[in-house]
């Protein structure tokens, strides 16, 4: 649970419908996210959870519906504007820049905050050098936070999966986001790694007040750390409430376990 006091509604998703060709990925989804809270999105595979995040991020454009962030309403999001507004995300299949090392990957998350122009960078004196160093300091603090110091110069393609996931998180954190969208951050991890990741997520929420929207399959994790939960199944919303409310919801149970006929 978040230790901060939950604030007002920050992100409001209304009636989002998304289809690819004939396949309806999302049907009329509505839910909201309050400031400082940890909101989980759960559901069986193929329920449309990643598609939902992709809509918020501007990777997909929904055919219907709107998204309101801090009072401004959009019917489709533009990736860059979303990033500028302070919404960052990690990816289910990792979208790291394989050609770069850990530092450069996380530094790339700082790009919106880098203001020097191309000529200053080419000469690399004065403002450009100072800027690089200042951002390098921030990135190093993130690296310390995520405990990946030993691998900072390693090309990310050579890191094991669990560490790559941390770099993905680091890059999102580098954007100093207000909302962090995490797409299955604990997939493929063992218990210790999961505990570490939970700790990072909770610390981020605690220390920086970042609102977290989290897609996760591990029910233990979801019930433990989230304030409210949205349940999707086959692109439709079938549950919305606190973990306890959702846990005892008939529809949710049957979606996961199947009903007996």
């Amino acid at each position, binding site marked *: 649970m978040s230790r901060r006091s939950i604030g007002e509604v920050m992100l409001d998703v209304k009636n989002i419908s998304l289809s690819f060709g004939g396949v309806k990925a999302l049907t009329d989804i509505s839910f909201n996210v309050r400031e400082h809270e940890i909101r989980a999105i759960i559901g069986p595979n193929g329920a449309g959870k990643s598609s939902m995040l992709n809509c918020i991020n501007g990777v997909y454009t929904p055919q219907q519906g709107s998204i309101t962030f801090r009072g401004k309403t959009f019917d489709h999001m533009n990736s860059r504007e979303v990033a500028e507004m302070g919404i960052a995300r990690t*990816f289910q*299949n990792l979208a790291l820049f394989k050609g770069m090392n850990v530092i450069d990957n996380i530094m790339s998350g700082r790009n919106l905050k880098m203001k020097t122009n191309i000529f200053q960078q080419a000469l690399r004196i004065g403002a450009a050098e100072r800027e690089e160093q200042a951002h390098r300091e921030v990135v190093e603090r993130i690296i310390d936070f995520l405990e990946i110091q030993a691998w900072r110069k390693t090309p990310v393609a050579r890191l094991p999966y669990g560490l790559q996931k941390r770099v993905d998180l680091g890059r999102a954190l580098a954007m100093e986001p207000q909302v962090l969208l995490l797409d299955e951050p604990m997939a493929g991890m063992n218990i210790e790694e999961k505990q570490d990741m939970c700790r990072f997520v909770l610390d981020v929420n605690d220390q920086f007040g970042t609102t977290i929207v989290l897609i996760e399959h591990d029910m233990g994790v979801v019930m433990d750390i989230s304030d409210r939960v949205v349940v999707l199944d086959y692109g439709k919303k079938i549950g919305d409430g606190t973990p306890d409310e959702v846990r005892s919801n008939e529809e949710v149970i049957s979606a996961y376990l199947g009903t007996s006929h």
Partner: protein
Amino acid sequence: MGPFLETLIGGLMTGMLYSLVALGFVLIFKASGVFNFAQGAMVLFAALAMARFAEWIPALLGIEHKVLVNLMAFILAMGVMIMLAWVVERFVLGKLVNQEGVTLLMATLGITYFMDGFGQTVFGSDIYKIDVGLPKEPMFLLEDVFQGGILVNQEELSAAIIAAALVALLAAFFQYTGTGRALRAVADDHQAAQSIGIPLERIWVIVWSVAGFVALVAGIIWGSKLGVQFSLSQVALKALPVVILGGLTSVPGAIVGGLIIGVGEKLSEVYIGPMLGGGIEIWFAYALALLFLLVRPQGLYGEKIIDRV
């Protein structure tokens, strides 16, 4: 109207010939995911083989009968192309399974340089003739409709017909045979195809041989028209816009693209060329393909590339 029709028909036929060369590209790309820059060099190599064999057979064996000589030369040249396919598979492609596109591209570029040099060493670097009996006199069609009739080059016409037949055959092959399916699987993912038991090496030798066959036919036709000389390999560069326009993975695309480029080129040279100082043929095809790509990046019939995140 008459001249316009002449230009149009001429363009269609030239376009068909471009399609033939483009086919070679499409085949190899469809089956191995490799963009074969060496296709042009293969056309030249095949044409050289054909031309020289046609010379050497009468000289060495004393056979004079033209059809027989050409047939034997064709078979020999085809044999050379199959050997080439085997060599390429063994020493180049086999070592580069599942490498990135750029690496493979450069490998084919290397093959180009090699074939240029090797071909000239073995077969000589003069200009050679190919004569397979394609009729060369021009025909005049529709003499009663248009004054003087429409001039149609018979050689180009027969070439166009041959090309069309070949294209139809290959399209059917890919679509309806088991080998065709296997080839498409290989193009998608080398390792996955291997893992389900598709014999990668044999498939590649088959594909490059078929491409070699296409190159040989193209080489004979173009060589018959232009003479077998170095500039023949530049013909392949003309086929690139065709491939782009039609989509790299589509055999019908190669046809349609070829026709569009052929017609476009001829018409632009006749009607726009004089305004720009002439000689715009060398880049018009590319400009056309480029404009097209901006509207439809995957070409007319190409598969849309979807990035999943």
